[in-house]
């Protein structure tokens, strides 16, 4: 028993099963990511004025990732063309290049995630901030931002003495020694090294500030730049995490077609090229999602 139209297209629909299936699956994917992007819009429009973080990502890393994915889409098409022309080597190397580009994308994503993990943000009461911290930060040209609705200031940076405090069981008492960030966004200044994905980090020799836990806003607290820290980061991790899952899925499928799946070339090259075409359609969609993610999370 064979299923009809696995290789050749049905004449009246012009599609073989796999192609139809992947387009239908992508329709559901559009609804999935569409719902998430709509929620992003909903949450962002509902956010208090001035509370939405701007330019907190490293655009250069994001841009590199965009280029990597676009390039991988090209190699993906080359792999398919290689099969259609029955040039197995072209196919194999183009597919391998696609996988390498996909993995490189994931590696850069990992670097960005790591940066969110090692950076901390602190929400400090307005009164205490103006009295105790503002002048020090201004003097050293450190970055801070004001959140008007909650009457607090936000400072981001490396939490220097956290391990030490935990070891001494002093985490509740403090004080917290923090090396604040120089600037938000994607400025790359000579003489200062750049945070992995984040922004311009101060030098280790730069003066640190010392935050008293009592001055921290009780409702916002402090934390790593993870989903709990703010809705922007929640959206960031949700969207990029879901996208990264799709990349991983695509890479796994391509690894299969690079190894075990490529045996089909001997038996039925046309079916293998159909499979690669279907994989490619999915891969282009993942690319397209990233092209949407990049401007809305990195450039705004």
């Amino acid at each position, binding site marked *: *028993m064979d299923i009809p139209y696995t290789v050749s297209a049905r004449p009246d629909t012009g599609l073989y099963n796999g192609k139809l299936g992947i387009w239908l699956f992508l329709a559901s994917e559009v609804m999935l990511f569409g719902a998430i992007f709509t929620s992003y819009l909903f*949450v962002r429009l509902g956010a208090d004025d001035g509370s939405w973080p701007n330019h907190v990502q490293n655009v250069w890393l994001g841009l590199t990732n965009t280029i990597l994915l676009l390039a991988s889409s090209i190699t993906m098409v080359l792999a398919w063309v290689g099969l259609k022309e029955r040039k197995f080597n072209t196919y194999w190397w183009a597919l391998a290049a696609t996988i390498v580009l996909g993995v490189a994308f994931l590696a850069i994503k990992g670097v960005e995630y790591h940066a969110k993990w090692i950076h901390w943000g602190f929400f400090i009461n307005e009164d205490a901030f103006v009295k105790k911290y503002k002048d020090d930060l201004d003097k050293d040209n450190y970055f801070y931002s004001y959140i008007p609705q909650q009457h607090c200031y936000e400072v981001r940076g490396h939490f220097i003495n956290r391990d030490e405090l935990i070891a001494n069981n002093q985490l509740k008492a403090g004080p917290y020694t923090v090396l604040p960030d120089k600037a938000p966004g994607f400025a790359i200044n000579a003489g200062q090294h750049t945070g992995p994905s984040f922004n311009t980090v101060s030098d280790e020799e730069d003066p640190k500030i010392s935050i008293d836990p009592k001055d921290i806003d009780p409702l916002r*607290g402090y934390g790593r730049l993870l989903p709990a820290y703010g809705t922007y980061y929640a959206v960031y991790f949700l969207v990029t995490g879901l996208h990264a899952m799709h990349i991983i899925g695509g890479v796994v499928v391509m690894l299969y077609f690079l190894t075990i799946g490529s045996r089909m070339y001997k038996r039925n090259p046309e079916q293998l090229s159909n499979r690669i075409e279907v994989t490619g359609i999915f891969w282009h969609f993942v690319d397209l999602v990233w092209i949407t993610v990049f401007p809305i999370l990195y450039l705004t």
Partner: protein
Amino acid sequence: MDDLPPSSEAAASSHAPAAHGHAHDHGHDDHGHEHHELGFVRTYIFSTDHKTIGIQYIFGGLTFLMFGFMLMLLMRWQIAFPYEPLTYANASAHMGYQFHEVLYHLGVDSAPPEIPTPVAVPAGQTCFMEWLFGKDQMPGGVMTGNFYNTLGAMHGTIMVFFGIVPVAFAAFGNFVMPLQIGTVDMAFPRLNMGSVILFFISAVLMFSSLLVPGGAAKSGWTSYTPLATISDPPTHYHLLGMQSWVAATPNFPEHPTWWALLLAGQTMWIVAMAFNITSSLLSSVNFIATIVNLRAKGMGWMRMPFFVWTQFVTAFLLLLAFPPLEAAAFMQLFDRCFGSSFMSPGGLIVNGQPLITSGGGTPLLWQHLFWFLGHPEVYVLVLPGLGIIAEVVANNARKPLWGYNQMVYGVLVLAFLSMIVWAHHMYLTGMGTAVSSFFQLTTIIISVPTILILSSLIISLWGGAIRFTSPMLWACAFLPLFGIGGLTGIPLAFNAPDQFLHDSYYIIAHFHYVIAPGTIFALFAGCHYWYPKATGRMMSEFWNKVHFWPTMILMNCTFFPMFLQGMAGMHRRMYDGGATYQQLNAGVLHWNIFISEAAWLMGLAQIPFIINFCFSWKYGRKVSDNPWEATTLEWSAPSPPPHGNFLKPVVVYRGPYEYSVPGAVNDYTPQDEPPTAKPTHISGPAPADERSIGFPPLT
């Protein structure tokens, strides 16, 4: 790409659809592939055959339906007899009281019976219910509020996502649809198996969540935030992110380990739903691809049976409406486990503690995303039922469906409109009158195609030579009862009456009339109708009547009084069945006991069906391949169909419902009967020219 060398199609086997209905030599009971026999596991558990998968779904789905129903039976005890221990002594005392009250009213007993006083479980003893559900759920046999909420939430979730969708869409769709379009299997058999596995995983997660400490999800089947975000254990124990701050704050309890968070009932609900949704998505891709690409030769779009159309449309609804809920589930998972605030505004106070979140979210986001699924889901539940009823009505009225084309166009319009009516579930959230007006309008418009389909089915009966077979009994009950369910929805569609009726028992009565006597009756009809195809045997007509009449009567006894309670203003989420507010609900509270007892008896009334369904598999009357004398293609395959379904290539020559065609010798002409061929069965009743089709003259 025109200059590419010609593809080596020759390497592939030829793929004309008809060429692959291999002539099987082996008998009907042979499940094997023609090249090699499959083992037990590959044949019955990890099967890729659409028929086996359909049967897996129907056994799973019917079991879960029964289980979800029993949860509600338990809940009805608390509503009927609030705060009374559920023990044998109390239950039998109440039953005895009711029995003697009836006798008194009939004049058999001379004095009215005494109202029994509840007996507490003696200290130190553990009653059965406490042993079964644990001390924190039913201490001393008395249901706690948390457990009541758990039962309500799990009843809704299980009935909708684990009962009706698997049976109506996955089971009947998988089994019948490929047969009806005359193909060998689904377009993606392995994907089909994957759907079953995902469904199984989701069911395991959902049902095992009843066993974790704290119990299963308890925020309703809608899982509204912020309730769902802060319930067991509350979200301010963040797994990641702000936990250092929480740990540093005085008076905060230790935050639990990560597995305690993941094992909380509400979290498991989300994860199980994510698996369930993925399973449905893969199924729907498979269904649409199969219907579009694998129809047999000659099976044009307007020659497809109406059941196939409803499956097609249902698949599209699932495909496009489910992903937003999946997105919402991810967000709720983030909110619960990672402490984000997609759906919780800042400044909430929970248990006297300020909820530490970054804030900025809104509960409306969840409601919009949920109901964007939730309303199409209603049609996902209903449309396969309508498809089954259409098949049964045409077959048993021995007439073509009246207005087949209108029904098809109606179902397409219905599908489109169902995507833009979701916010009529949210009139009371303060969306604003302009938004409400829009959704009010679309909701009213959607009743037009619905009524068109239902009217077509009723008109199809007109002038038919109706056979009251088992499936037809259910279909006849379906038509008026589903009508009640649909028509009572119209007051809810309007903003103004909905202000009053919202969240009352009226709503419960309305959607249960749509789904219980509507869809579930259709499922019973489908079980009886296609049972001979799946097994080669007939279910017992006698035991069907023993099942049908009590179920039909008790179904109405259960749900009709709820209209009265709802219109009197009784709220649907009262833990004590409204006893606290009995001054406000005066005059309708006594229905609680009546409804509960009708529901419990209805539970008993399902036993004949279970016996009938299981025993007929082995001992039912053996019948031919086409016992109903039906026209659609599934009846041209052997019963049960072998692997690959048809014995010879299928070619379709005519429409799906050629019953009582003037000039034909039989009163039915199968779709694959060639126009010139001599009829093979001479069993039609009267000569054709004495019979009429369609309306008799109205004058």
